[in-house]
């Protein structure tokens, strides 16, 4: 449906050129929800705007539904108003000189084949009903709350049933509670209209909750992409791991290889050994980094024997209601783990950490950022 290949965008600025996007490729199948996720300034918005046609790429190709809409090498640039898209802007961009109805009707009214008046009315009301704003059709656009502006922006983007929906951080202007609510509504809405969606955000929980596929961007390139669960559980490097959620990093030394893919390692500054799955090319004696999520760290307070255990001290406890966050000191590092709230323990208590080898990722030094 949407295909972006080796997209490059270089901005000219007074002091030289800024490479905002440096070769981004991805495809979004029909009806899928695809998210570009990354820290501020990594080039998400730029990529989205190139897809929208608001920005001319410096290189690469973009095709929507089999039609090439941008290919600078061949001199192709279809302007935004000739692309079959709907877009929701970060600032919503609700036109202040029109009422709600006027805003939503606009894409139909300016269409090259303008539908008859009655049909416009019907379709606008349908779009407004979809976002629960049909009662406010006559309201002036300057008298809307943030959440309402956002719904209007959605209705406007969807009213002409575009092939592709583009969303640039549509939730970031809302306060935390409303954001949560709008996230569910948005998810439901997009599912209901079954539209191909390209979504941009820097909020990993939004990305993980809503997407069929996530692409994590950094510095103008896609570092890793895939279904949210894969990217979350198998981050390709420390950057992705840290960006997608809380992560623990432990330094270790390979003691002995136990198979083609597995080895026994010793945690630096701690006692005990772990068996882990190793990427190829790492030999005994090498230093590595083990990355795992807090929810994958099991903590035991009774001394236990055997492998895959490392001993530490409870450094700090933070009761959260539904769970307790427990910070363990192991050598020089602090590891975060989640405890059931019923477990009672105190600062300074001895604890044993167990990690499931299948649920941690190992990097050779240098690969982690």
């Amino acid at each position, binding site marked *: 449906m949407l295909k972006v290949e080796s997209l490059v965008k270089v901005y000219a600025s*007074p002091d030289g050129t800024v490479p905002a996007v440096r070769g981004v490729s991805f495809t979004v199948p029909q009806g899928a929800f695809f998210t570009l996720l990354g820290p501020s300034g990594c080039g998400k*918005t730029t990529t989205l705007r190139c897809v*929208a*046609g*608001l*920005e*001319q790429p410096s290189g690469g190709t973009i095709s929507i539904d089999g039609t090439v809409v941008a290919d600078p090498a061949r001199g192709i640039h279809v*302007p*935004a*108003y*000739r*692309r079959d*898209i*709907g*877009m929701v*802007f*970060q*600032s*919503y*961009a609700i*036109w*202040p*000189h*029109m009422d709600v109805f006027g805003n939503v009707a*606009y*894409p139909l009214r*300016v*269409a*090259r084949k303008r539908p008859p008046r009655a049909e416009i009315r019907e379709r606008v009301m349908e779009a407004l009903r979809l976002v629960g704003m049909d009662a406010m059709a006559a309201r002036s656009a*300057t*008298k*809307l*709350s*943030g*959440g309402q*502006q956002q719904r209007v*922006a959605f209705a*406007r*983007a969807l009213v*002409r049933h575009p092939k592709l929906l*583009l969303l*640039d*951080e549509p939730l*970031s*202007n809302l306060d935390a509670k409303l954001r949560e609510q709008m996230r569910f509504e948005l998810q439901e809405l997009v599912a209901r209209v079954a539209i191909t969606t390209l979504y941009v955000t820097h909020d990993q929980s939004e990305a993980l909750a809503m997407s069929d596929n996530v692409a994590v961007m950094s510095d103008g390139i896609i570092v890793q992409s895939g279904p949210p669960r894969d990217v979350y559980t198998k981050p390709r490097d420390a950057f992705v791991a840290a960006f997608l959620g809380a992560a623990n990093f432990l330094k270790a030394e390979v003691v002995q290889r136990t198979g083609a893919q597995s080895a026994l390692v010793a945690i630096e500054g701690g006692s005990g050994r772990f068996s882990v799955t190793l990427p190829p090319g790492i030999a005994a004696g090498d230093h590595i980094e083990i990355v795992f999520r807090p929810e994958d760290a099991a903590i035991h307070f009774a001394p236990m024997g055997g492998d895959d255990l490392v001993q530490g001290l409870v450094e700090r406890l933070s009761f959260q209601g539904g769970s307790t966050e427990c910070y363990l000191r192991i050598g020089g590092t602090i590891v975060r783990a989640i405890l059931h709230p019923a477990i009672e323990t105190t600062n300074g208590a001895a604890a044993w950490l167990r990690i499931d080898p299948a649920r941690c990722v190992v990097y050779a030094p240098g690969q982690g950022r």
Partner: protein
Amino acid sequence: MTAVAQEAAASTPDPGRRWGELGIAGVLVISLTVLAALYLISAPLIMLLTTAFRGPQDLLPFEPGAIWTFENLRAVYLDTKLYTSVIPNTLIFTAGSVSLTFVLAFTLAWLVERTDLPWRTTVFTIVLFPLLVPGVVLAIAWIFLLSPNTGWVNVALRGVLGLTGSGPLDIFSMGGMILAQGVGLVPFVFLLLSAALRSMNPSLEEASSASGASPLVTFLRVTLPVLRPGILAPLILATLVTLEQFEIPLVIGFPARINVFSTRIYFELNTDSDLPAYGKAAAVALPFLVGGILLLLLYNRAIRRAEHFVTVTGKGYRPSRFALGRWKLPAILFIVIYLAIAAVLPAVVLVWASLFGYGVPSWPTLGTASFAAYAGLFASGKFWGAVGNTFLVAGSSAAIVTVIGALLAWTILRTRLPGRFVLDFVSFMSLGIPSVIAGLAAMLLYLSLPIGLYGTVWVLVLAYSYRMAVASRLGRAALMQIHAELEEASYTAGGGWATTIRRIVLPLLAPSLVASFVLLFILGFREFTLPTILQSPDNTVLSVIMWQLFQSNQTAQAAAVGTMIVLFVVPVIFAMRRLLLAQDGKD
């Protein structure tokens, strides 16, 4: 959400302080401020109203022998010339110049703010350049360029087209007046329009593009309507300024025998034969004054609407520029031609005329350059007196108005003084008083008051100081940004009123005070109307000297004064540009 929130915040009444809580110092300062403001604005106006109904016409209203009469009104309003020439001339002049100004200023502002035009900041600076040059300087430069016999442009055109005699263009015509005035007002309107364009959220236009609207449809259905309040306010203001224009109608319109309202008033005071006709001048002024104030009320409504229309939500805002593509060359050409006509040629012709006299440049004349005009000027005590007067009057009136304006703004926003809204209204209305009328009113007042002020520079200082609106509006805008709690924290910490004003409010207001001082200083520096009407041998300022020299055919010296004024203005423009650019943090 932001728009709604802002509205709510704006309409929440400040707690405000009662009269009794201010302390003696506070009561004293505020009372004095209020009295001074009311005096500076309304005393001359009341005098003007009275004069319109007093006669006979050559007597001051309170001179012995003066009586109440409708004679002035009858003489003025039963004269058909008013309806067949003065009113139509005023309307044609205003409509023509404002249209020309708007087409030019909008095109320039759009090119500079919204497209990828090269050298935008440079263009911005040069366009603004004539803003500070007094209108009379520009008017005289236009005469040098376009007078039918010896104007440079006419001589050049005759050479190219093979014509003889005079012409083909004539500055001394309605067309000439419109051209000079229309081009002259471009910098001011450009400044306002570019601010409006800059504060428009470009994603409003992009949303239209993404909805399938072509660039033309987007421009017509989104850009223009969204900008409408931001365009309307400058449009009304420009109409007001043009309506009260005096320099161009005097310098260009008088030889052309085209009278508008402002010159009509002036000629009642400077009749060829009779004594000044005070009563008739005041009678002519009345509808003119009403017109000015009505326009101002309209303006006030327009800016209110503009505030409700706030569209910038901050986040996700990115200035995106329209790629000119193959229109780049025509755009550059337009800018070059405009700048040549509006800024470069007038400056060149002035400098030239100051060195070579009023003639067409040619190779032989190059050898005859002479600094005689400058030498003459520098040797004349009158010139130095005018330099001193100009700075003294502009500086002290700017200081007075800045202080009073800021205190007024504080009183209006932060106290519950009864009648403070009247005060707000009166100070704002001062903007709608045409300066010819302000001059006339001050003349009547200080001629009548037996305190010997008339004819001194101090009468100019007082007359200049009626323009309270600029300072009180700027002060108000700044005060709104300073939360009342900052002051309240000082009161609760034990600071009295005077301490709080001095140690909290003034330091926080400082940037806005500086801005309003600079603005008022510039206005005072450019002023020509008031010192012309109130002129005496002791209080001439630079712009008046230039006009006097020009009238007495000392062209080179007049041009030299003009050049000196321009030389002074250049550094100010650069300082102002830095101020403006720093504020917006743009390219």
